[in-house]
């Protein structure tokens, strides 16, 4: 019998598959989209440096994606990646991490990396929950949702993290869901070619630790929910806050052309060197 080999399997570390992700999880879709994006762009994985934090979404590339993969501490991936990017400005430095990691414990690093406009490609996989620890409320969990640490109802409103990153000064911000896989791949390709801080919030599903407590028991139920709840940015512009309640606004939220941070740093160094040598 001939062995079936997926055309993109070469991008993965086959020796440690299968992944740790649960049935119905969106992490596989994100990995699929990312690998398709780099394949379409013909980016050599040798030029990708992946930095991740802690949580299910960090396990999308770490350890499965076959490039340099650095699996760091909870929330600090963006700060760690900043250190990598300033020395390796030509590399595609990529951060894939979750809502708990990037919007919760690492929220401040995310805001400041966006403000600095450091040339990272950041994919925030928002599954509304702390999945790896078993389903605790996260900064993006909807108001009223039942989780293991809000067993009666979530008393907090969720953070619109993509808007926060846009306001902080990122060069590119978009939001898509795992239902919009073609749009997501297209956006990932834009991000991977964009200079400056580039960010996609990928709304994803966690049927095991989140969905089962809010009536979305499997991946298909989530796909239907994302399809039904999504509104394009253009349409959303003409909707009131009440009308947008419970909706997921998808599309490109912002695109700027500010100078990338490491380039800016290098220009300053060059002008100092010129001055020092009396040019």
């Amino acid at each position: 019998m001939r062995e079936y080999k997926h055309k993109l399997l070469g991008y993965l570390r086959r020796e440690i598959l299968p992944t740790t992700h649960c049935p119905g999880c969106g992490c596989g879709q994100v990995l699929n989209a990312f690998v398709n994006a780099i394949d379409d762009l013909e980016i050599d994985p040798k030029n990708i440096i992946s930095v991740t934090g802690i949580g299910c979404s960090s396990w999308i590339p770490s350890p499965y994606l076959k490039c340099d993969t650095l699996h760091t501490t909870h929330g600090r991936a963006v700060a760690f990646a900043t250190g990598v990017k300033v020395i390796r400005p030509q590399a595609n430095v990529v951060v894939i991490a979750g809502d708990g990691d990037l919007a919760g414990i690492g929220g401040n690093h995310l805001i400041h990396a966006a403000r600095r406009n450091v040339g990272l490609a950041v994919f925030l996989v928002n599954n509304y929950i702390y999945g790896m620890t078993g389903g605790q409320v996260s900064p993006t969990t909807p108001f009223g949702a039942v989780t293991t640490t809000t067993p009666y109802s979530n008393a907090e409103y969720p953070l619109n993290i993509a808007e926060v990153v846009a306001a902080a000064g990122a060069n590119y911000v978009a939001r898509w869901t795992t239902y919009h896989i073609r749009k997501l791949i297209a956006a990932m390709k834009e991000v991977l070619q964009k200079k400056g801080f580039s960010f996609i919030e990928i709304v994803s599903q966690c049927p095991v630790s989140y969905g089962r407590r809010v009536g979305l028991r499997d991946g298909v139920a989530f796909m239907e929910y994302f399809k039904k709840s999504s509104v394009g940015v253009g349409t959303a512009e003409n909707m009131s806050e009440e009308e947008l309640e419970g909706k997921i606004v998808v599309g490109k939220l912002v695109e700027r052309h500010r100078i990338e941070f490491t380039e800016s740093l290098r220009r300053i160094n060059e002008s100092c060197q010129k001055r020092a040598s009396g040019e």
Partner: protein
Amino acid sequence: MKADPAGVLTGAHYLDGDFACGEGAMAAGCRFTAGYPITPSTEVVERIARRFPTMGGLFIQMEDEMASMAAIVGASWTGTKTLTVTSGPGFSLMMENIGLAVMMETPCVVVNVQRGGPSTGLPTMTGQADMMQARWGSHGDYEIIALSPQSPQEAFDLMIDAFNLAELYRVPVLFMMDECVGHMTEKVVIPPAEEIEIVPRTLTSVPPGEYWPYHVNGKYVPEFARAGDGYRFHTTGLTHDERGYPDMSAECQEKCVHRLLEKIKNNADKIVRFDEEQTDGADVVVVSYGITARVARMGVDLARKKGLKVGIIRLIVVWPFPEKRIRELAGNIKAFVVPEINYGQMVLEVERCAAGQASAICVPHGGGGVHDPNDICEAIVRAAK
């Protein structure tokens, strides 16, 4: 190899300890620094930020100390020599990623210009109360290297050693200054670059595809591959096997953590450094470090004038501790006297090593100033009885 002349400000200078420390880092080849302003350490990064551009160095002021530490660990994985600088409150925040650097085996240097604590404590005044935090501050089992300079000249000299040790053992090296040394101004002689010996990163000779990041081949320290060089390696803060892949088992934990301990413990004789003076025939030996070593010397002189036989051990490398020498001395003397600007930290280590053969007497000081040499003299007199 010899130091890159671009980073070496050869000549005789009049510098404070913070500036000398920054000069030491640049002479040692540090070309990336991330930091967050905190008294009394800020002058180190101010010096570096001003001087870096001409040597192609990059400084970033990060949003906090967690980010600073994370950034220097990240930059070190590109093969660059990296530094961050802080004081007590920031040192507490750095503990998380110091642990990451230990687990990933990342060379880097962390300066702590110690001030009085706990918490905000005495921001502008001296202390030495983070010595045990340096040893045990991050969670889990690990061994660490820490140095303590007693003067601006030593802040320069030992910084070179700190960077070299970080490279040799692939471990974060902690540079435990104190506010007094940081803010005192003295003559600092910076030698020519060709007289400064530098340990470069040990880059692997194994080609990509055959390389595993934690394959040590019977040695203590694995060979390094730089991120971005096409090795497509994996590294992690999780317990990992030789390939760097996570392995959640007691067997892997034993193998992984054991080597992290052994690479320092089994090389302690090479790492440990201290000054020793007149310990032959001494009844009392004073053990001290940093600014307190200089104050203690005055106390020792007073005691010697009274006819007492007093020896001195000055710790230069504080971790690993000179366990062997303290054990040897303990059999020959009555007591160790340990003045330090805390309520008794390194004295615990002296007491442990003395193991009841000699007493270990703490001369505490709460911080905000240095000891009165008379107090140290009195402690020596009492110990000699």
